[in-house]
């Protein structure tokens, strides 16, 4: 009995972890109490947990992403605080290793990924004039699998111990021999479960975009965000299976002592690195392409002009997606693979900078002869352009393999990838969030606070990350929990810490903005408050569950269908209101995802009986589903008409 509980104890407890534990327990109790007191369980179950509405699933991804942004953010501040002064003892080596490992995983997989998936879900069906995604119930399952993977990862630091081998989890360090707690088991299993959800999302959205576009919407009339979503999802479908296989092999190494990657018996440590980056490099493009899509929407809206070079924008993304699979070796130029191999991957990597540059120039020329309005989303985009360019050119520096021998594993690399991911992905997500906020929640975020936030964030960003380029060139290696005063790194690390503090302020300003606007913003806004261009703005606010009463027909329109209808009077809604077929909600995906969580947890601790229980429930759900008859339901034409009349009274789009 004692032994049974001992395995769940954390190997390296500290005061910080105990505080976290206590606050998790108290927070959970408070949450349950509130939900029970306000009798919300039924509402949550009917309206959210079992929902098949792409908009609501999107919002659940959004909430997850924002929560994880704050979890990862706290980690980041702890890391910078530890490095702020030399020989600091705030965190010990082990704790620091756990924090940077979870920070990386949380930010890439549980913050950035759900954030872009939120946009896929919320926007893609609206932009292509569809009523839902191709497989609505699969969509719900994908979310819950992702969510359970996230949950499993997040309990690691209070039950059994966090992973500590870096977000790249290189073997043999991540093998049993050197990483003895269950932390890396959590890594393997939670990424596996969340990854399954992501793969489902990929298949779902490719099908949706290929099959469910409104009449008249040819591929080259798709809005730029939908294009970026299509390509990102294609990359997902090609890249994620590699991660699945690598994680399965890694799990076997850890649980069954196979020797795929471990030392001895023919294990090949660099095989893990190869498989990881065959997925990992495309992964960074899965993140950045949708971000490019969002910026394209924002920039053309607020330059009040069509996007310059639409076709070259599309082709550059296609080229990037193909090349993203041909550069993974640049993550280990220093493996000793020789001059020829390094030369090849050096060139393919630099080649990616060309289509990326094309996009930057297209955005710049979209401003040409425009009528630029500096709204908050636009301000994010305008900060993105120079900052991301800086990140891109330092990427080219890293791509010079011989010189990379000096940058690899240093703070220079850390500066590069934050320089592309923060102004690229995070700014895009926040710009898109501000842009689409009124569409989701029916009120605008405050513009004054919004713009101030961008300035504060950029200031913090520059102070945090630019110094790292310098300390990197001065020899500061990454992932080192401390350094001595003699190195001379201390001043710049202190600047970084101050920058991190300023960035924290900017994120708190976002929370404040949401609260402030929730209290004070007017609710009688039109459904098109920004005077925007895409089909998604041709819906009512709030969007009814069927999205469009009549399926739009964009035969006469360009890729900016709504703009055309506003400017040229192009008719979008031809035909008359008919019965609308809708899918039913279902609780099965949730049950199945919970079973996956149990299965994952059981695997982490090698509790085979529990694993069998989880497996039986999963198989049971599948069997049940295959025998089930579910034809959905219809919203009758007269109900739709009544709803539409109500909107007409409120004003807004026709």
């Amino acid at each position, binding site marked *: 009995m004692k032994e049974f509980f001992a395995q769940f104890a954390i190997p390296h407890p500290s005061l910080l972890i105990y505080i976290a534990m206590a606050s998790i327990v108290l927070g959970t109790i408070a949450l349950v109490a509130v939900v029970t007191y306000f009798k919300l369980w039924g509402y949550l179950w009917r309206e959210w947990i079992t929902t098949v509405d792409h908009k609501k699933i999107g919002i659940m991804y959004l909430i997850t992403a924002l929560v994880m942004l704050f979890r990862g953010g706290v980690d980041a501040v702890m890391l910078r605080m530890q490095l702020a002064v030399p020989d600091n003892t705030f965190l010990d080596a082990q704790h620091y290793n756990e924090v940077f490992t979870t920070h990386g995983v949380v930010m890439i997989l549980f913050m950035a990924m759900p954030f872009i998936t939120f946009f896929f879900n919320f926007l893609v069906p609206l932009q292509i004039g569809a009523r839902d995604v191709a497989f609505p119930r699969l969509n719900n399952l994908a979310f819950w699998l992702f969510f359970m993977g996230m949950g499993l990862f997040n309990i690691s630091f209070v039950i059994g111990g966090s992973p500590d081998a870096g977000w790249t989890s290189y073997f043999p360090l991540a093998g049993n021999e050197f990483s003895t707690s269950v932390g890396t088991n959590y890594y393997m299993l939670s990424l596996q479960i969340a990854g399954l959800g992501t793969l489902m999302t990929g298949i779902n959205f490719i099908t949706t975009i290929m099959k469910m576009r409104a009449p008249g919407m040819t591929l080259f009339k798709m809005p730029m965000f939908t294009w970026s979503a299509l390509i990102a999802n294609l990359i997902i479908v090609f890249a994620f299976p590699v991660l699945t296989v690598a994680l399965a092999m890694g799990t076997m190494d850890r649980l069954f002592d196979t020797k795929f990657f471990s*030392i001895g018996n023919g294990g090949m*440590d660099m095989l893990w690195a190869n498989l990881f980056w065959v997925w990992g490099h495309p992964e960074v493009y899965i993140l950045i392409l949708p971000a490019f899509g969002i910026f394209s929407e924002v920039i053309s809206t607020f330059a009040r002009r069509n996007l310059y070079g639409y076709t070259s924008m599309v082709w550059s993304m296609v080229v990037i997606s193909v090349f993203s699979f041909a550069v993974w070796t640049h993550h280990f130029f220093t493996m000793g693979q020789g001059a020829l191999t390094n030369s090849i991957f050096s060139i393919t990597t630099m080649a990616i*900078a060309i289509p990326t540059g094309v996009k*930057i120039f297209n955005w710049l020329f979209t401003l040409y002869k*425009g*009528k630029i309005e500096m709204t908050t989303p636009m301000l994010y985009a305008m900060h993105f352009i120079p900052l991301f360019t800086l990140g891109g050119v330092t990427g080219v520096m890293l791509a010079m393999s011989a010189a990379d021998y000096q940058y690899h594993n240093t703070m220079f690399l850390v500066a590069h990838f934050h320089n592309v991911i923060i102004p690229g992905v995070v700014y895009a997500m926040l710009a898109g969030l501000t842009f689409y906020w009124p569409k989701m929640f029916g009120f605008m975020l405050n513009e004054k606070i919004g713009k101030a936030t961008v300035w504060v964030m950029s200031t913090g960003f520059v102070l945090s990350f630019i110094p790292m380029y310098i300390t990197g060139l001065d*020899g500061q290696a990454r992932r080192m929990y401390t350094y001595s005063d003699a190195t001379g790194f201390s001043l710049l690390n202190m600047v970084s810490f101050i920058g991190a503090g300023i960035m924290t302020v900017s994120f708190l300003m976002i929370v404040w903005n949401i609260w402030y606007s929730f209290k004070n913003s007017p609710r009688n806004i039109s459904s098109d408050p920004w005077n925007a261009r895409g089909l998604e703005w041709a819906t009512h606010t709030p969007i009814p569950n069927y999205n469009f009463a009549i399926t739009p027909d964009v035969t006469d329109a360009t890729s900016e269908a709504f703009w055309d209808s506003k400017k040229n009077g192009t008719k979008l809604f031809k035909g008359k209101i008919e019965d609308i077929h809708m899918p039913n909600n279902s609780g099965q995906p949730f049950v199945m995802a919970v079973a996956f969580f149990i299965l994952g947890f059981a695997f982490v601790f090698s509790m085979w009986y529990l694993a069998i229980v989880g497996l039986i429930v999963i198989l049971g759900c599948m069997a049940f589903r295959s025998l089930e008859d579910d034809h959905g339901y219809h919203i009758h034409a007269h109900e739709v008409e009544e709803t539409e009349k109500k909107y007409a009274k409120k004003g807004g789009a026709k």
Partner: protein
Amino acid sequence: MKNLKGTLLSFMALGTMLLAGCNDKLTVLDPKGPQAQRQADDTMLLITLMGGIVITVVAILIFMLFKYRASKQSADYEPPHIHGHWLVETIMIGIPVIIVIFLSVVSVKSNYIVESTPQGFEDKEPLVIYASSSDWKWHFSYPEQGIETVNYVNFPADRPVEFKLYSFGPITSFWIPQLGGQKYAMADMVTTLNLAADNPGEFWGRNANFSGRGTAENMFDVEAMTATDFDEWVTEVHANAEPITEEKFNELLEPGHLGRSTYTGTHLEFSPAPHHEHHDDEAEEDHSSHE
């Protein structure tokens, strides 16, 4: 417009601050050997070229933002619909293509340079030193001299050095920034790093790849000496140091940090390096003299 001026000013302030902060040369840009020299030259070239690109983008951006702000235009101005222009798009793709071709040529040349015997040392027989890592220290074995050191390495400045790298544990990365960039040391293969020092001098080296709890302190001292000093040191080691025994070596392999120590003989005799040399794609001569 206030915003833009603000940005410019803050960038300038930052630039000055940074420049002031690094009066003494940054380690990587202060090379003391031919390999590091090449890497530092490439870095300076890249910084200049890439700086040019950033400045161009920022200049165009500022121009556009000044010129086409809504607040500067009449209320009834309607921006035109512009698809693109073949000339603009050709320039926009052409210039980056030229830059990338140029950098590719430089990159390929540099690759062959850093992977071969350092320039200026071609006619000298390289000194082979095995550098193996264990949690969290470095073992240096000199088969030619028949000695072994822990956490420090000495070598003559008039000979190229061929470091043969491997690991007794997690992947590590052997790095002496002033002499040249890093390379991985792994448990299942041996990799080769060619370095040389222009003149006698002292440097620091470290494991740059995360390898667990003790990584931060996983450093070693490097000294390039004159040939006579080196020979003297070797003689001294033979006179004073204890031989390395299997027992002693296993003790050294236990995880932990140790100071410097010195032995006669090498562990390669009873615990040879992994067999599998990493197959470089060019036919590479094996200089190692033992076995």
